């Protein structure tokens, strides 16, 4: 039993890290008042681009970086539409997902199902071969994700730039009077969420799977959207949520590995069902408590008559 728990615990961070990274990006974006449903598409583009770069002979870190940049590029298309053209944020988010899934399918067609060597785990490196299993299963990006979480938390909560960003999400008119360039802050926040979303996607192909398959994001982008709501837009709680969902996702392969007979597709429903339940519980718990950024999803226009 303890062997099972240990092997399960060792794989949880690998499942949780992409959720954590993408959700941190989304927290930044939504704290600036932009309702962003795009992660599923942004992650797909990041995963596809990262895989293509590594298959083209570049190192895994280059793959991760280019994947992140590709995610940012798509995210900026979303940003252009909602911030500059003031399009409806829900519909634009959905359109961005469609475009991202379409782009990754179109340009990744020739790369499908071709395994490659991505980022090694600690246990596979020369210096880390003797690490205990719990650590040896991890990799550098997981460490980076934890550092990122602390950094995002501190930056949002303590820095002046974070204060200004939160002001935009709470009351853009007040931020505007205080000299904050609302549109620029929102565009930067969207870019940051794209960068992290792309990185999370690239992690899935370059680090976790070490192969690119169309549809490999498999709803994780939507789980991220729900996770951020569950976490009440707090980076610390995002980690809790990522571990919860990552843990659920990691459970099925482990159960299969130890030979528990369980219908595989029913088991695969677990993350989605869990998301549904947790999301509903979070919405019920937050009712009336106003944890969401007050201006989330609203279009700000200084000329509007108030």
């Amino acid at each position, binding site marked *: 039993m303890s062997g099972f728990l240990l092997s399960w615990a060792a794989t949880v961070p690998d499942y949780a890290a992409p959720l954590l990274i993408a959700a941190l990006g989304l927290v930044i974006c939504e704290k600036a008042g932009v309702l962003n449903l795009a992660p599923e598409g942004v992650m797909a583009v990041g995963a596809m681009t990262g895989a293509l770069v590594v298959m083209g002979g570049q190192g895994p870190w280059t793959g991760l970086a280019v994947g992140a940049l590709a995610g940012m590029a798509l995210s900026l298309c979303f940003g252009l539409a909602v911030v500059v053209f003031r399009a409806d944020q829900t519909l634009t988010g959905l359109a961005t997902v469609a475009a991202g899934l379409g782009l990754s399918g179109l340009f990744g067609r020739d790369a499908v199902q071709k395994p490659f060597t991505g980022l090694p785990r600690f246990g596979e490196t020369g210096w880390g071969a003797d690490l205990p299993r719990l650590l040896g299963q991890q990799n550098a990006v997981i460490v980076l994700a934890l550092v990122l979480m602390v950094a995002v938390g501190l930056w949002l909560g303590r820095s002046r730039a974070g204060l200004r960003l939160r002001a935009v999400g709470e009351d853009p008119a007040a931020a505007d009077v205080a000299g904050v360039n609302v549109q620029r802050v929102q565009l930067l926040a969207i870019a940051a969420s794209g960068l992290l979303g792309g990185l999370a996607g690239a992690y899935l192909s370059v680090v976790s799977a070490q192969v690119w398959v169309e549809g490999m994001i498999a709803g994780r982008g939507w789980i991220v959207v729900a996770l951020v*709501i569950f976490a009440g837009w707090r980076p610390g709680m995002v980690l809790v949520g990522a571990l919860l969902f990552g843990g659920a996702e990691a459970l099925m392969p482990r159960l299969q590995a130890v030979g528990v007979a369980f219908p595989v597709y029913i088991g695969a*429903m677990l993350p*989605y*069902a869990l998301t*549904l339940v947790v*999301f509903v519980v979070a919405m019920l718990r937050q009712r009336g408590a106003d944890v969401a950024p007050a201006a989330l999803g609203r279009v700000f226009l200084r000329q509007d008559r108030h």
Partner: protein
Amino acid sequence: MPEAPLLIRRQRVPGWLSALCYAGGLILGLAIAAGLLMALGVPGPSLWDEFIVETFLTSDGLSQTLTAMIPLALVGLGSALAMRVGFWNIGISGQLWMGAVAATWVSLHGIGPGALRLPLMLVLSCLAGAAWVGLPLLLRLKWNVSEVITTLMLGSIAFLWVQHLLFGAWRDTTTGFANSRSFAPEERLPLLGWGHLHAGIWIVLGVTLLGVLVMATSRVGFYARAVGLNPRAARAAGLPVLGTIAGLVLASGALCGLAGAVIVTGTEYRLSQTIGGDYLFSGIVIAFLARSQLLAVLVVAFVLGGFYTTGNVLKMFYGVSEAVVLLTQGIVLLTVLSAQLFSTYRIERRGNA
């Protein structure tokens, strides 16, 4: 920062302007998609040939396009009904899967006499679709839980359930493929003798006509408009707000379920893994581009049906992934949404102050 131009919200948007912006966004989106395809090596003239001539102007192509349009129109009508009362039904594909499952279940278990088999399959698929949207609806109405996530998650769950059935109890034992066995002839929608076009087209036309009539002449349309525009004021005036939302959203789920049944009884003749994948965004795209007008849904679904026909051709002859259809939907939605800026606002250079 350069000086940003001023945006002034228009109180009254002239019809011609909004049509112009719509057309501009549409053309720009299609041009970007065409440019991408040409960059991928599809020659421009053959793109024109495949999309316009072969899909709309030849008898073969037209029948294919019309066949592809049938389920698209049904999910588009479904989305439009839900969108009218401000409900984001994003789990269309889940309701479609459940409709297909319900129809297949009737076939596999041989429920009811042969003559009533097909109607029973269609009715049950409506009920299944409505039931599948029922939970998100209940959560939204009772506790204001956002339906975007709940409908989506139920969509994924429905898909996995179909997989579970197809790789398990419902697998076709004669071939061993992950399909259900074929439907009996009386369980299929009759072909109309023009390509693969089947009687589903009459269902689409009938449903649209009924929808238009109900919306135009009964209180339903009146309530739906009021609730969609300002639910609070509608409630304060005594309108049945919850009933209106529930009715239209359940109808939306029913139509999506029906779309699933129409696919399995009209074109596939069995439940397979591939039937519902394309419909995740189509419903929303059609409903938005049709501005939730039911008659316009038919037109948009027809054009989008052409996309799917073209997509299949491009895949076969040019090796372009069918993801191009999804990409085009995304791009067109983005450009049309963005172009609305020019009709919603008046744009002015800064005064000379």
